[in-house]
């Protein structure tokens, strides 16, 4: 049974979408190209059923950056880009044309992008709700998305067993690389955000 009503999930989606637009704007500035972002909705999943819920993308091999946020709420953010497009994203971040190999410098540039995008997201969250959250240092992993998503889920939602997952789809229009920004919250964190929104409205 869902712990969150559809109306609340929609409200949460609206606020996370507006915060993720800040992340997209930050990425756009970093690569000097427009970035489209779309958050179709917030998914509430019981931890064991998360694998089924993300089945369509679980086997995709990706390069991912994870940061966890601590403060008024616990929140995790994982930026992932398909491994075949990571070199293209790194090239844009490094001001180069085409694609670069995933060197230490290339990985560092993607990690830094994740860092800045999380910072922008958290600034957006503070502006919209007043909630203050500090992000951890960023770390990177390369594996299948399903495997990499395990850690953020353990980090944020293992205490309650329920995870709220928002998938923000990011794309540089036309032929540019694509990425996903996963926002992970536990139920308590989601309730806190909703309480702030409801108090303001």
């Amino acid at each position, binding site marked *: 049974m869902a712990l969150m009503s559809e109306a609340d999930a929609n409200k949460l989606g609206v606020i996370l979408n507006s915060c993720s637009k800040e992340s997209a704007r930050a990425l756009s500035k970093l690569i000097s190209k427009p970035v489209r972002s779309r958050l179709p909705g917030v998914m509430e999943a019981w931890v*064991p059923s998360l*694998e089924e819920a993300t089945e369509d993308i*679980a086997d995709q091999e990706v390069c991912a950056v994870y940061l966890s946020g601590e403060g008024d709420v616990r929140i995790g953010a994982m930026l992932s880009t398909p491994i075949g497009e990571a070199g293209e994203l790194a090239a844009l971040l490094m001001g180069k044309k085409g694609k670069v190999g995933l060197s230490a410098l290339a990985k560092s540039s993607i990690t830094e992008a994740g860092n800045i995008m999380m910072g922008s997201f958290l600034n957006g969250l503070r502006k919209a709700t007043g909630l203050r959250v500090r992000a951890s240092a*960023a770390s*990177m*992993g390369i594996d299948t998305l399903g495997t990499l998503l*395990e*850690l953020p889920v353990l980090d944020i939602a*293992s205490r309650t067993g329920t995870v709220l997952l928002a998938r923000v789809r990011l794309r540089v229009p036309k032929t540019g690389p694509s990425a996903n920004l996963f926002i992970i919250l536990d139920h308590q964190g989601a309730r806190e955000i909703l309480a702030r929104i409801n108090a303001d409205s």
Partner: protein
Amino acid sequence: MMPSTIHVAMGQVAVSDDRESVLSTLVGSCVALCLYDSRVKMAGMAHIMLPESVEGKTSSNPLPARYADSATEALLKAMHRRGSDMSKIRAKIAGGADLFHHETGTSLFTIGKRNAEATRRLLRERGVRLMAEDIGGDHGRRVEFVVETGELIVATRRDGERRL
């Protein structure tokens, strides 16, 4: 005939004595604890999420394999209930990776290592012999436990398949 696959999701436990079945899961920093009683050809798998709670355990969350200790206990009990002899049970484990690393090469999350250490310690305490393990590294693993033979097949993105 193709074996039937029983998927063991995060925090869950499964037991099977159907010789045509395979217990399967995908682990990163989690640990797949696989127990086998060769006398009755019964296999059990727990998908362990965390070594131990730091905030105290809550009974409201029915995830039997959330913690290494509750997972080991739940799996041993489930196999015993279905006729397995505790003294005949042997273990194999896989997982416990640290997938995310800081630029300096250090790992900021040590959940994988701690999951593996806790599982080994609990098996020792319960007198269950650990026959094989594939632990650590920075990669996820697809794990299949064959009920007919007790063989553990561990596949990784980089290194292919290993049979334990």
